[in-house]
């Protein structure tokens, strides 16, 4: 037995390998990203980035249809992208075990919404496991593949940010799979895998039969357990919330649900009969609470615990101490200035957003580091909804504003474009919408921590692979006007932008500059720059770039800006925007 400190994501990776997973695939997304990275690092199985989550689930399910175990990992909103195959995979079932990891992000630490994906389990009729710490994450992941095979259905494994990224002590043992993998074989079975209506109608009935069998399993499964203490208060909980309950309410009895769909009705009734008062402690949606109410129990949940954001042990203590008498959270920051996230020093996105900001054009945005341009001083992102949406926003605006051509552009990152932007460009070209799309090609999936993708030229192991040819790709989609511009050449960038915005035809500008954080960054870092205080007029244009390396001394408005030579990467943008030639390379 070895004691190690593992994050939930590391535990999933280990668990999947212990269970003999044959194919693991994912699209990066916080807080799920490290799952596939760790599977690749541990080795012994096929690990591959997929261009998006729908592809990941379909890719993995193909392996399962042939009797192999497979895993697809994604963040909560990735399940939206993958929802199409997921709902019907519940009908077909699997042969080899299929585990779909959904890493949810209550509090929206790095997401556009905080949807509660437990709802997907009950909606799609797919069993869902929800571990509370890394030890359980390891154990649940190991078991999930066998359960998937035993019940012939995909299995969801749901984590939340604090489970995915929290590190807890894990005791690693030699594990024997109680249900060893099935024998792989590729067999034709149209009634199982071809969901034409005549087959699917039967499979829908069969799905409910399987759910009934799994519900029976849930009633006695060790995944669900009662921890009895007092009889005054009984708490029904799952996942991370279990920890908060155990810390905050040591005298309460707890029904801890590790299998959150399907729910064990008899077990819940039994638990409720043991305690005088029953409450549910859960983050986000009243998912468990609604089920308890549905089966006829008197229960309190969202009347005590907020539906918004994360909770912690303090939330639970307060909720139980003072019903209806809660002081609002005070912002105790006082006069300490806020510190919103910003683009890195030398970031290749800075130049184009400086130009868009100056031009005051409407920018339909997307999901990635460049979304940070929404903040001052750039203020140059005006929509962000989901991956790939910006192109279609721009096209929609352009389609109904015939007389105001050139009022909008779309921006999208390289990885995001390959995830779900191709269809948008295809639509633009097909419908001859004269919008301009700017692809911000930094050669990586930067926001999630620099993962490779089909445009980076490397696979998950860092080995060379085929790289998308942007011009061929975009022309193939029907875009006649494709321009490739260096992200650090402001003059050329500005001229290209003017030409393409004015052009009365669909156009794409690929703005290329490698992410500053890429280890093998192909761009050489030049010498740092300095500002000559004698020449500087304190006009502030260099500060409007929002570069972390440029600041006024003592944070005083009357002082002239200075460049921190230790941080400066020599990207040269400040040199290019300075009208007084006050900025030069350090000799």
């Amino acid at each position: 037995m070895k004691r190690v400190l593992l994050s939930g994501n590391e535990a999933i990776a280990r668990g999947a390998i212990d269970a003999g997973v044959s194919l693991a695939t994912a699209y990066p997304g916080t807080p799920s990203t490290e799952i596939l990275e760790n599977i690749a690092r541990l080795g012994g199985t096929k690990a591959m980035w997929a261009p998006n989550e729908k592809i990941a689930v379909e890719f993995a399910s193909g392996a399962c249809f042939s009797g192999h175990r497979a895993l697809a990992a994604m963040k909560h909103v990735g399940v939206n992208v993958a929802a199409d195959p997921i709902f019907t995979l519940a009908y077909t079932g699997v042969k080899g075990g299929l585990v779909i990891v959904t890493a949810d992000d209550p509090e929206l630490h790095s997401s556009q919404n905080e949807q509660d994906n437990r709802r997907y389990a009950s909606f799609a009729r797919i069993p869902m496991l929800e571990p509370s710490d890394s030890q359980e994450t390891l154990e649940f992941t190991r078991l999930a593949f066998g359960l998937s095979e035993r019940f012939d259905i995909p299995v969801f494994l749901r984590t939340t940010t604090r489970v995915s990224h929290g590190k807890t002590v894990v005791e690693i043992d030699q594990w024997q799979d109680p249900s060893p993998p099935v024998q792989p074989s590729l067999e034709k079975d149209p009634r199982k895998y071809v969901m034409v209506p005549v087959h699917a109608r039967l499979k829908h009935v069969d799905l409910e039969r399987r759910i009934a069998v799994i519900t029976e399993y849930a009633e006695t499964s060790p995944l669900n357990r009662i921890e009895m203490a007092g009889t005054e208060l009984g708490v029904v909980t799952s996942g991370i919330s279990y920890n908060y309950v155990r810390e905050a309410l040591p005298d309460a009895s707890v029904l801890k649900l590790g299998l959150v769909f399907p729910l064990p009705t008899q077990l819940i009734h039994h638990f409720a009969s043991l305690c005088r008062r029953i409450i549910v402690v859960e983050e986000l949606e009243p998912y468990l609470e609604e089920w308890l109410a549905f089966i006829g129990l008197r229960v309190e949940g969202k009347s005590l615990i907020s539906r918004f954001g994360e909770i912690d042990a303090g939330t639970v203590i307060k909720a139980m101490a003072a019903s209806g008498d809660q002081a609002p959270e005070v912002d105790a920051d006082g006069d300490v200035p806020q510190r919103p996230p910003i683009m890195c020093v030398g970031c290749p996105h800075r130049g184009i957003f400086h130009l868009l900001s100056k031009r005051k054009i409407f920018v339909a945005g997307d999901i990635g580091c460049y979304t940070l341009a929404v903040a001052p001083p750039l203020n140059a992102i005006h929509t962000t909804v989901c991956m790939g949406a910006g192109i279609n926003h721009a096209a929609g605006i352009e389609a109904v504003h015939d007389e105001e051509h050139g009022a909008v552009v779309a921006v999208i990152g390289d990885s995001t474009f390959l995830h779900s932007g191709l269809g948008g460009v295809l639509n633009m070209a097909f419908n001859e919408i004269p919008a301009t799309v700017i692809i911000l090609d930094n050669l990586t999936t930067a926001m999630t921590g620099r993962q490779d993708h089909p445009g980076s030229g490397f696979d998950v192991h860092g080995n060379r692979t085929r790289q998308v040819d942007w011009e061929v790709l975009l022309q193939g989609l029907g875009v006649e006007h494709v321009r490739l511009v260096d992200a650090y050449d402001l003059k050329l960038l500005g001229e290209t932008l003017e030409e393409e915005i004015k052009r009365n035809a669909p156009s794409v500008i690929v703005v290329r500059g490698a992410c500053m954080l890429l280890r093998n960054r192909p761009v050489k870092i030049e010498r740092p720059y300095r500002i000559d205080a004698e020449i500087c007029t304190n006009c502030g244009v260099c500060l409007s770039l929002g570069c972390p390396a440029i600041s006024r001394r003592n944070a005083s408005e009357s002082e002239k800006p200075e460049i921190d030579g230790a941080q400066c990467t020599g990207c040269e943008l400040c040199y290019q925007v300075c009208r007084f030639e006050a900025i030069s390379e350090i000799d």
Partner: protein
Amino acid sequence: MAADDRPTNILVVGVGGQGTILASELICHVLMTAGYDVKKSEVHGMSQRGGRVESHVRFGRKVFSPLIVRGEVDYLVGFEMAETLRSLQWLHSGAKVLADTKAVLPYTSQVGEAPYPFDALERIRQQGYELIVVEGEEIASRAGDVRTANIVLIGALARLLPVDRKVWEGAIRDNMPKKFVDTNLRAFGLGYEV
């Protein structure tokens, strides 16, 4: 839980790029090696781009929640002055503060719109907290690499925690790339003597 079973809470704060997560990682390894139950939590992704980084470390006989409840921090380790000041709301009145003198200006201060609290450490002292000031970068340069400022603060923290110095040094050897081990051990040692 009985009072003596209460976990000890360490809050490590800094700005993206300062090595905050690496530092809390090291603390956790040491505490686990010393036989404690340990939990750690922080947020990755968007907030790391120059934003505040906040890492919760909890240890004890048994730890349930990976998050510290506001007002229950025992040790605050701050790599950046404004972030250290911002974190006071997390402390209980008897908490100890280890603070680096480093200032990283947020954008509004860079351009001179929002004053930066250059008097942060003075204000922390005035509020009655036990404050240990660490000139991280200066000491780190003496150790041979200014980037080991985070390890200097870890050294100062190590002095306060119930784990033998040798365990800390072992963890540095086990968790750091070989070529950085000696510099980090020097930085740790200088921090320990602060």
